């Protein structure tokens, strides 16, 4: 991977972080599920995707949507319930979607998007253009039977499906170890003969490297693959949820910040100057300011839309 890829990745991660902090400063948008800390997973995976691919994800969908290239203004609009969101403000948090941009979208039922993604993969398989479906889900989803049913069928039918577990070690308050028996979550793929690996989800280069290898495998007809990325979420489960982790744990997590990590590496490697780094942050901040302005200028949907598109 080249340095320009790295700088794109850095910019993408910064965009997520910045947009989310603008979002959490608002009080008019209900609770939100933030990706802060976990940016490297969505960004690293998205870097391996082509335009014709489709990305699906869980309710924690801000990083995936932005990483897939959705317009930050429209994403912001959707999150604060405005009509210029891609879902016209109806989907909102947890249901972001823009299939035309390769983002089939979020679904807020834990594990609910897994079999849907396999169905999307089935449709893409019929197309023969080597496009693939990718489904991002949390460690929590690994306790659900949907994963098993989906892996079995995907393996049997050799579907072009990459399953990406963004394992942030918690499902709300429940530590992954208290909810899931397997040693590594990627071990779950083994019985089905599904190619799998586990990487450091706080290192965008590792994520991207593994995603490229596995998407290549999937794209070339090798059948489904499974990627586990071990990450850390910096905020509580949602902006309205109680934090249960201690200060020490949170501080240790922050040490792993994927943004600082990549930035430091690039500075060290001479691929980035302090100047450029600051400029990048400035640009991102400007984009987010513009996005917020765009979103706020957008009207709320009219009440009659409650009845629209039901049929």
């Amino acid at each position, binding site marked *: 991977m080249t340095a320009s890829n790295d700088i794109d990745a850095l910019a993408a991660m910064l965009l997520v972080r910045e947009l989310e902090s603008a979002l959490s400063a608002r009080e008019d948008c209900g609770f939100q599920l933030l990706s802060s800390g976990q940016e490297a997973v969505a960004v690293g995976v998205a870097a391996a995707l082509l335009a014709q691919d489709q990305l699906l994800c869980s309710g924690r969908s801000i990083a995936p949507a932005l990483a897939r290239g959705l317009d930050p203004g429209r994403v912001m609009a959707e999150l604060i319930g405005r009509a210029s969101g891609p879902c016209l403000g109806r989907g909102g948090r947890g249901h972001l*979607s823009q*299939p035309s941009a390769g983002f089939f979208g979020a679904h807020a039922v834990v594990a609910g998007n897994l*079999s849907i993604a396999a169905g*999307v993969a089935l449709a893409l398989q019929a*197309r023969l253009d080597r496009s693939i479906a990718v489904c991002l889900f949390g460690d929590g989803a690994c306790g659900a039977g949907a994963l098993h049913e*989906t892996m079995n069928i995907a393996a049997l039918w050799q579907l072009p499906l990459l399953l990406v577990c963004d394992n942030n070690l918690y499902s709300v308050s429940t530590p992954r170890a208290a909810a899931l028996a397997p040693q590594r979550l990627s071990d779950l793929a083994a019985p089905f003969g599904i190619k799998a690996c586990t990487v450091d989800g706080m290192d965008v280069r590792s994520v991207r490297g593994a995603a490229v290898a596995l998407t290549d495998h999937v794209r070339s007809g090798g059948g489904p693959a499974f990627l586990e990325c071990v990450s850390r979420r910096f905020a509580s489960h949602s902006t309205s949820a109680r934090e249960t982790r201690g200060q020490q744990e949170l501080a240790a997590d922050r040490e792993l910040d994927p943004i600082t990590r990549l930035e430091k590496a690039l500075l060290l490697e001479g691929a980035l100057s302090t100047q450029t780094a600051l400029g990048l942050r400035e640009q991102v901040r400007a984009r987010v300011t513009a996005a917020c302005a765009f979103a706020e200028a957008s009207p709320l949907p009219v009440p009659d839309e409650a009845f629209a598109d039901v049929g």
Partner: protein
Amino acid sequence: MSADPGRTRRVFFREAICRAVGETLDAEPNAIVMGQDVGAFGGSYKEFYGLFERFGPARVRDTPVAEAAMVGLGVGAAAAGLRTLVSITYMDFVLLALDPLVNYAAKARFKTGGQIRVPMVVKLTAGAKGQGVAHSQSLESWLVSVPGLRVVAPSNVADAYGLMRSALQADGPVVYVDHKRLFPTSGALDDSVHEVPFGLAAVCRPGRHASIVTHSYMVCVALAACDQLAVSGIDCEVIDLRSLAPLDLATVCTSVSKTGALLTLEEGQVVCGIGAEIACQVQARLGPVRVMRLGAVPAPVSSNPVLEAATLPNAARVADAVRRLLMEG
């Protein structure tokens, strides 16, 4: 079956379904069928017989026993460009698949602001025929209450064909409910390609004294009851709803305004059932009319023949209900 418009043949219920599905697979290269034993086996009731040979394993797909994923895949595939028919043997097992059906498929178009549509048919076999507590339920009323789902339930060969044709052309999810006791039936089907539109009930038997409003296999039961009642001079009209969502209230109301008495009949539970909905809608439109609801007794349906028979509406019970309804008036 090769087409020969104008010609009418006697076919079994399963053949009517199979023809409609086969025609769709023929006409739409992106249409697929998925289900347990729908492939070489041809379906539990042979309702997919021959399709596997005609269209191959990529388009007529045997699945594992995994109803949730079957429907989930059907939804995802439909949303991404395939037209899918997912067959679930018994309606009881749709309980395993309600999350993708209700939480995703029924809401996808709305929640994405119209970006995603789910042209999927889920075929379920309802009703009791000696298969016991977990294979005999009729749960149409649940599905009818879900905004975004359409629900149809044929009672005869022509509708089995015509409703399946329509279902396979719809742009949103459709639940197609057939019935174990309809598979042995046969009837006339002409060779023309034709749809039965949604939202149109049929008057299967005209009559003057009371309207029996029902669907699926209970239409047969209602007609048998009418024969019994006719002997004692009671002349009932039978309305076959055919489509439960959308509901054809107009046809029902026309009938009830004429007869002045409404018996709703369903094989499922009466509580919060289709009959309750119809009774309310009819009275909201027509004002007070004589109404009675008949359905299964509030108990599980055993495979035991004595108990199964004690649980479900039959011609005698329907006739009795009509007599009580008319006496009340």
